[in-house]
């Protein structure tokens, strides 16, 4: 699919005859190798999820976070080169605190997205800098309600109802389009995002992965809350109970003001939930 630049792709300051900057397009390719990142805007907030592919079993569960809090009211999920992502997050944090120092109020999400996008774009203008090899899904809750933005390596930023980047982005986008987001609450959204991530995960190519989730909604008091135990324990939970059947068990236990926890559910409830989910999966397969 990829067209060879043949000479016009050596520098980010060179245009090709048909008006493309190849280096930026190549930077976008870096995203396609990374785990899927999904974000949706529900009725009352934002939910983001990341399929974090695990390189080695030696890695501590919960390390190498892909979802970061930028400010109390906003968070960022990163796809692509992780180190590049750290830079962008650092910049976003700095912009957010700077804005609050000057204007006395938390940075509007639209403004934050514009500043992040400008910064990413800046690095595509000079020959002595390379473009960022990562895309970012930015979710926040301000005076105008919940908003979701996506910033690409080219510096383009748009506002979305639902967005996905990474390996399984096509499949994920298809799944998101099936959802009725305007009626969905964030509690339901968390389950849907988890479902989508599990669905687009390619068992054959990539073995182990961790699911990272975060939300900002009325329930979380409009503050960005990340899953901690949810990621590692959830995967273990699933693997131990399900014998590699691909289904999920969404435990929505994000309590007010605390980090989300996984509650070990009584076994009869577990059975009931398992049946329901398996049925749902069969219905999906039957389509």
């Amino acid at each position, binding site marked *: 699919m990829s067209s060879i630049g043949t000479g016009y792709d050596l520098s980010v300051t060179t245009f090709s005859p048909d008006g493309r900057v190849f280096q930026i397009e190549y930077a976008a390719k870096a995203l396609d190798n990374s785990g899927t990142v999904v974000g949706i805007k529900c009725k009352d907030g934002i939910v983001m999820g990341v399929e974090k592919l695990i390189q080695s079993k030696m890695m501590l569960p919960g390390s190498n976070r892909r979802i970061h809090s930028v400010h109390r009211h906003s968070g960022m999920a990163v796809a692509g080169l992780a180190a590049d992502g750290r830079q962008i997050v650092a910049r976003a944090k700095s912009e957010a605190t700077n804005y609050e120092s*000057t*204007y*006395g*109020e938390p940075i*509007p999400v639209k*403004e934050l997205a514009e500043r992040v996008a400008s910064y990413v774009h800046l690095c595509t203008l000079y020959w002595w800098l390379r473009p960022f090899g990562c895309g970012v899904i930015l979710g926040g809750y301000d*005076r105008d309600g919940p908003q979701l933005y996506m910033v690409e390596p080219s510096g383009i930023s748009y506002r979305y109802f639902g967005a996905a980047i990474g390996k399984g982005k096509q499949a994920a986008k298809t799944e998101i389009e099936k959802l009725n987001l305007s009626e969905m609450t964030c509690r339901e959204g968390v389950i849907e995002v988890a479902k989508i991530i599990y669905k687009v995960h390619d068992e054959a190519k990539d073995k182990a992965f961790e699911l990272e989730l975060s939300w900002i909604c009325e329930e979380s008091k409009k503050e960005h809350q990340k899953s901690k135990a949810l990621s590692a324990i959830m995967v273990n939970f699933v693997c131990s109970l399900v014998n590699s059947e691909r289904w999920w068990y969404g435990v929505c236990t994000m309590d007010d003001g605390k980090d989300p926890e996984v509650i070990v559910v009584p076994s009869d409830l577990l059975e009931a939930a398992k049946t329901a989910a398996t049925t749902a999966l069969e219905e999906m397969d039957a389509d």
Partner: protein
Amino acid sequence: MEKINVDAPHSMGTTIIGVTYNGGVVLGADSRTSTGVYVANRASDKITKLTDNVYICRSGSAADSQVLSDYVRYFLHQHTIQLDQPATVKVAANLARLLSYNNKDMLQTGLIVGGWSKHEGGKIFGIPLGGTIIEQPFAIGGSGSSYLYGFFDQAWKEGMTKEEAEALVVKAVSLAIARDGASGGVVRTVTIDKDGPERKFYPGDKLQLWHEEMEPQNSLLDIWSGATAASPEPMRE
């Protein structure tokens, strides 16, 4: 007879007031700008517009407060364009206090920022000399305000109507003018609510007279020009 230094820095002795009411704010001020004991401007406008929905009352050094207001107006204008919405009173006040605080060794201004925004309703912020910012249901400032602390303690109440708030502000400025030599002239008010700002003007000689204040006497100018009908008998040896 000591010489009057007309080149002394213009200072606004001043009385400035900002009061919230049910649905907006009322800002009020006197109109005297003095250089030493000389009144450089007896009809100055100390309530300055920052945006359509936020105004600022200025006291202290006239030059300092004017320049500071200009800066704040400039930053607010850019902020409004970027935000695509009217600015909040909080942001305006914050910008003003950052300038006031960071330049505290050079500036001498006491400010009251007041206005109305969709998200906050009516808000008043006091920014005294050092660059503190404090949100208050009402604020008073300037040299004349010393005489108003007790008055407001007694007369202020929560949830007034627009008419009550305006009457309170005019009465207060008028009382301060009566006692403070550095305040005088006319009373200006600006009332800001969801429908925008509204300016009112109260001439100095139409204000109520307080304790020991006298009716205006015929001035010699009036007598000599024949302006008054019943002129008193000129004095004889």
